[in-house]
């Protein structure tokens, strides 16, 4: 039992870290625009394909930063093209636009790839096996939670301590008054999408180093689970999303260890229903009534 528990927990925090890197993008965008960015999971998938095509002709030292750059550019462009023109439209319109973008990206990826699964390149350093006690695992399994925590702490520090972070918090509360302070809200919103897409790109590298192949719809499941993590943690809260993601990752792996693999996905969605029924604001979510 114990010798099964350790790898199970390791894999749990690793998967949790992957979900967390996606979940932060959902929660930040929601915090500032009150929008569930349905395209976020597809941006994650696109990052996977960027790597597939770039690594085919470039060394990893070049393709890795390029993947991140392209993913960030994609996230930025989606916001500018599909959400910004709807800034003063009802929120439902933006939501529908987000669903449209999601399908557009998916279909583009079908079109470009022909729908065939593409082999993700092996990143040697991440895929090396190391021994931990009696078991062995890929370095990426250990590296993911560590990097996730470092990036989350850096992000929370940015938001709590810097001027742009203060502007983000102000914009998330009140667009108009933020503009009266001289804040360019469009730049702040763009910064949010840039950070979210950056983290999704990092997450995709870690994720696909484990799962090895990319298909146009592969982002849907991790995207959904990250979304549940964000709701569980209290949508809008970054620490909440990270903790929620780790909880979901660990629980899923414990369920798998106990032999109920087929139910591990169902668990996540059962959790979503339970939260929505009993604590819709999640672990750290603010009460809506707090908003003035």
């Amino acid at each position, binding site marked *: 039992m114990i010798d099964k528990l350790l790898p199970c927990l390791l894999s749990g925090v690793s998967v949790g870290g992957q979900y967390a890197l996606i979940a932060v993008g959902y929660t930040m965008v929601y915090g500032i625009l009150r929008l569930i960015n349905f395209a976020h999971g597809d941006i994650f998938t696109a990052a996977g394909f960027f790597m597939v095509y770039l690594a085919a002709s470039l060394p990893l030292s070049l393709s890795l930063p390029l993947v991140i750059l392209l993913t960030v550019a994609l996230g930025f462009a989606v916001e500018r093209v599909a959400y910004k023109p709807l800034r003063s439209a009802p929120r439902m319109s933006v939501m529908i636009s987000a669903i449209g973008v999601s399908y557009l990206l998916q279909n583009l990826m079908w079109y470009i790839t022909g729908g065939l699964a593409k082999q993700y390149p092996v990143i040697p350093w991440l895929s090396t096996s190391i021994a931990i006690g009696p078991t062995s695992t890929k370095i990426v399994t250990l590296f993911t939670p560590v990097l996730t925590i470092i990036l989350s702490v850096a992000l929370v520090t940015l938001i709590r301590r810097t001027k742009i972070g203060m502007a983000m*918090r102000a914009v998330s509360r009140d667009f108009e008054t933020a503009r*009266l*302070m*001289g*804040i*360019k809200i469009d730049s702040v919103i763009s910064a949010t999408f840039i950070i979210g897409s950056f983290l999704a790109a990092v997450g995709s590298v870690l994720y696909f180093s484990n799962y090895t192949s990319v298909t146009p719809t592969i982002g849907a499941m991790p995207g959904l689970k990250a979304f549940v993590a964000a709701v569980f943690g209290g949508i809008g809260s970054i620490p909440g999303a990270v903790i929620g993601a780790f909880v979901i990752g660990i629980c899923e792996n414990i369920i798998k260890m106990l032999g109920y693999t087929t139910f591990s996905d169902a668990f996540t969605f059962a959790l979503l229903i339970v939260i929505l029924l009993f604590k819709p604001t999640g672990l750290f979510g603010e009460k809506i009534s707090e908003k003035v």
Partner: protein
Amino acid sequence: MSLLQVKNLKVNFGGIEALKGISFNVDQGQIVTLIGANGAGKSTTLRAISSLVYPSEGSIYYEGRDITRLDPQKIVEMGIAMVPEGRRVFSNLTVNENLLIGAYLRKDKAAIAKDMDHVYDIFPRLGERHWQLAGTLSGGEQQMLAVGRGMMSRPKILMMDEPSLGLAPMVVQDIFRIIKRLNEEGMTILLIEQNANAALHAAHYGYVLETGHVAMQGTGRELLENRQVREAYLGKSAKR
């Protein structure tokens, strides 16, 4: 020449004309007030000056320059700040951060720190609570914070939208004392009020807005003594 000149300003909201061509001036060093009933167009006037809404016609001049339809941050940068209706402090930011964000466009760190001390000097209660989230302050304290935040951009003209709204009489007195103090320190003030009595007593000059146009104007004293103003806006409080 006036510091701020508004000429024939018209603002439409989807076919409804909220401002039907209003003109007024704010001279350097004065307190000028716009009074009028609910829905007369007072807030819309300030919002147009701050470029939160764009006028369909008319112009706004500041220090002789046409500033109509400039970006809101440009307006702040040039020296026009607004204390919005309903205070609108950032409830999720601390008192300190609310003041800092008022100085968002400034880079002179040392001077910002000095100006914060000045705000805390005028509003000692804010100083005592500088680390508290603004959402936990009382209504009067939030109003003071909103005024302090407005001061932090070092404006030449501070526009205040109904600063006395919903506050206890004692606090209203405080607010008006502070408006006068700021003015004595050299700040030009454009004050919007429904509390016409207090506003006209404080102001050098006033305009009465009625459904989107200027119905009357005069010095504070003239308007206080005007019969129509007394009947429509001062009620019993006119007797003092």
